[in-house]
């Protein structure tokens, strides 16, 4: 047994209102630069829908993730090492910019520069790729809220794999939102696909990162990731991906997407797992057993045996304690309501989802039933076969049973807690029906409905030899306390080294922020001139007070 710790997330889809705040704040923190205009480390998709990039779940086409070869051994679906090297000069399986979308800005200047004329001047869209006028035809969430629209939804790969004729009429449909970040998989196929070995999994917390100094831009990771959560920065020629906001979680604060989530639907915590068993679990023959296999890799932090092994593996005591308190562990294993996204890709994804009961509840209440009576709910879960099989296709490789069980537990919690809240005698039979105790149900309700910040985010800080979290916090706030000019390729370099815009060192985030504001205010071109120094820094915002630089400073009012 080799115990390792993994930073993991659970998202409660019932609470997602599709407001995209997570996406926007993530973009502000990480991808508000040229070269990654089209990149959303966090995006929110409407399901059913095509997703972003379009139809990324169609692995027959994109060949992401792992599969079992003829001998039953785990192999990259896009081909092994030799095939990768032979196709290195042109990767046929890489999505093009059209599969994401062509990013654009607007020619706002004409609004103020236009001469006096009869018609109102118009700010036309300009491509951020070519700089030319363009017709906007797609975006990262073009089919937002169009869950039942037959034109676009019909191409949803998940719907197709259900293999039933589904009525996509608006009045009979269902939809929900699916926020996605990098899965920080236990068995990351992006890392396995990287010819340079630049993508690595951090041994302390399992966060998957791209070493920007070692990445050589071979683009195989984009193909390798079945979730298409690795992106190619077309300016620097390097791969970039969600970092789980590691500078934040290292000091114990949650990721930007979680911090700013309006619905408070995200939970962050660590889980302990047995690294020796990952390969075996990922090689489980039947796709439908992968969900169970994935859970079986996780270790119970309350087990003394595990604790001893964790200590031997050098996992600090407070990390084990954090694993015991982890809301993620509780949702996955104690309440068994969190499911992995597409376990059949065999990457062992570590962002888990509580499937939405809302389509069922909505359907009941619109048809005039009491949507919180356990009898009605339990019956409806089975009757509404299509949402179940759709959810199963997303979360359990098509096996409806675990999904039905989760929805039943959520339904049971609703009915049980209604009685509690109305001061009636709660029906223990409801809890029994889903194999839970009344205490379990109340604990689950507390975690899902009223958990506070400290309960939703149980993030142990990183241990650094000879340093304390204060020092790390200090590093996080680079520009505030250090001279931001103290590095190579800094402001004096004008954002561009001698060998093109990508050379020189990577720029610390706060410095980019500084330059972004300056250039926004002084630039005279419509299209971003291509310097990398442009973004508001939400990275060190902890949710208290106003985010620095998000809004321009207030103009000093003259004394009257």
């Amino acid at each position: 047994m080799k115990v390792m710790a993994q930073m993991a997330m659970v998202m409660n889809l019932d609470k997602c209102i599709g407001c995209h705040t997570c996406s926007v704040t993530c973009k502000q923190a990480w991808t508000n630069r040229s070269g990654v205009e089209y990149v959303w480390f966090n995006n929110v998709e409407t399901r059913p829908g095509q997703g972003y990039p379009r139809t990324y779940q169609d692995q027959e086409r994109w060949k992401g993730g792992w599969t079992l070869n003829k001998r039953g051994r785990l192999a990259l679906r896009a081909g092994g090492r030799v095939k990768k090297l032979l196709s290195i000069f042109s990767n046929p399986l890489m999505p093009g910019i059209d599969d994401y979308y062509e990013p654009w800005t607007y020619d706002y200047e004409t609004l103020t520069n236009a001469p006096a004329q009869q018609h109102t001047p118009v700010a036309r869209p300009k491509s951020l790729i070519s700089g030319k006028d363009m017709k906007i035809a797609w975006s990262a969430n073009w089919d937002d809220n169009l869950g039942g629209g037959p034109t676009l939804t019909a191409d949803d790969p998940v719907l197709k794999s259900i293999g039933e004729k589904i009525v996509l009429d608006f009045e009979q449909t269902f939809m929900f939102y699916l926020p996605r970040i990098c899965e920080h998989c236990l068995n990351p196929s992006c890392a396995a696909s990287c010819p340079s070995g630049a993508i690595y999994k951090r041994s302390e917390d399992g966060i998957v990162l791209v070493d920007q100094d070692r990445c050589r831009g071979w683009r195989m990771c984009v193909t390798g990731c079945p979730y298409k959560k690795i992106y190619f920065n077309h300016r620097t020629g390097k791969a970039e991906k969600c970092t789980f906001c590691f500078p934040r979680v290292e000091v114990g604060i949650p990721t930007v997407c979680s911090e700013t989530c309006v619905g408070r639907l995200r939970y962050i915590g660590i889980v302990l797992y047995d690294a020796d068993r990952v390969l075996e679990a990922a090689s489980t023959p039947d796709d439908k057993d992968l969900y169970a296999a994935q859970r079986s890799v996780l270790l119970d932090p309350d087990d003394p045996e595990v604790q001893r092994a964790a200590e031997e593996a050098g996992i600090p005591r407070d990390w084990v304690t954090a694993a015991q308190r982890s809301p993620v562990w509780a949702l996955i294993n104690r309440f068994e309501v969190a499911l992995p996204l597409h376990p059949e890709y065999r990457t062992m994804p570590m962002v888990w989802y509580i499937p939405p009961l809302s389509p069922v509840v909505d359907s009941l209440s619109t048809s005039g039933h009491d949507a919180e009576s356990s009898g009605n709910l339990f019956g409806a879960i089975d009757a509404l076969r299509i949402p179940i099989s759709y959810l199963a296709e997303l979360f359990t490789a098509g096996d409806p049973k675990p999904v039905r069980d989760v929805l039943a537990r959520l339904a049971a919690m609703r009915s049980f807690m209604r009685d509690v809240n109305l001061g009636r005698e709660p029906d223990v039979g409801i809890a029994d029906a889903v194999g839970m105790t009344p205490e379990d149900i109340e604990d689950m309700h507390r975690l899902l409905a009223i958990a506070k910040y400290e309960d939703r985010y149980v993030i142990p800080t990183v241990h650094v030899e000879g340093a304390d979290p204060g020092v790390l916090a200090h590093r996080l706030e680079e520009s505030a306390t250090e001279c931001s000019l103290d590095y190579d390729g800094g402001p004096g370099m004008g954002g561009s080294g001698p060998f093109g815009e990508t050379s020189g060192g990577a720029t610390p985030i706060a410095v980019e922020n500084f330059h972004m504001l300056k250039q926004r205010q002084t630039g005279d071109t419509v299209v971003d001139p291509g310097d990398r120094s442009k973004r508001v820094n939400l990275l060190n915002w902890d949710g208290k007070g106003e985010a620095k630089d998000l809004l321009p400073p207030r103009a000093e009012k003259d004394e009257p």
Partner: protein
Amino acid sequence: MTGREQLLWVVLPYLCLVTFIGGHVWRYRYDKFGWTTRSSQMYERRILRIASPLFHFGILAAIGGHVVGILVPKSWTESVGVSEGAYHVVALSLGAVAGVCTVVGMALLIYRRRTVGPVFSATTKNDKLMYVVLAATIVLGLVTTVLGNVTGHPHDYRETVAPYFRSIFWFSPDTARISEAPLGFQVHVEMAWLLFALWPFTRLVHVFSAPIGYLTRPYIVYRSREQRPARRGWEPVSRPDQRGR
């Protein structure tokens, strides 16, 4: 040895070689972040799908041919029983295929670079200079070989260029040999020296990151947080008044 020969075949080559080696060392230390292929596949896929493998496999074969033709002495191949005639036929046929692939691939790539808007706007001055020198070197090499054979007087470069090139590495450049070579070969060699000098400062550095190690490394790479290469400059000093929040 005239002063001109001295300059062209001794001083310039050594300057270029020093720049080539020193430049790579320096660039690797200074600019790992800029060390990339700078792929433009995001912008355009269709032409690239054909042109890029054509060019790259062609030039790899051409490089292989140069290694055999220039680094391996003629006496070695003859001692294993390969006659000059046999060598020439093999070298010319394989070389012609590789050369044509390279040139066609390169022509397509340059066409693509010029005509596809986003690719063109991602082309730096540095890239343009590199393209000129690289294309000149390749075209000169191919034209010289083809012309020599078409006119029926193929030049045996293994008697002139090859010994000269090897002598560079013994630090006693055999300028007499290279001076005997036809003008076409001489210009090709000079262009190649220039290309070597330019090499470390262009995107061509990606040649040296050919990911051979991928064949043997384990699929999943684990790295400790502490193995992060330290940022150059001073470590920030923590001040007690700023600890914690």
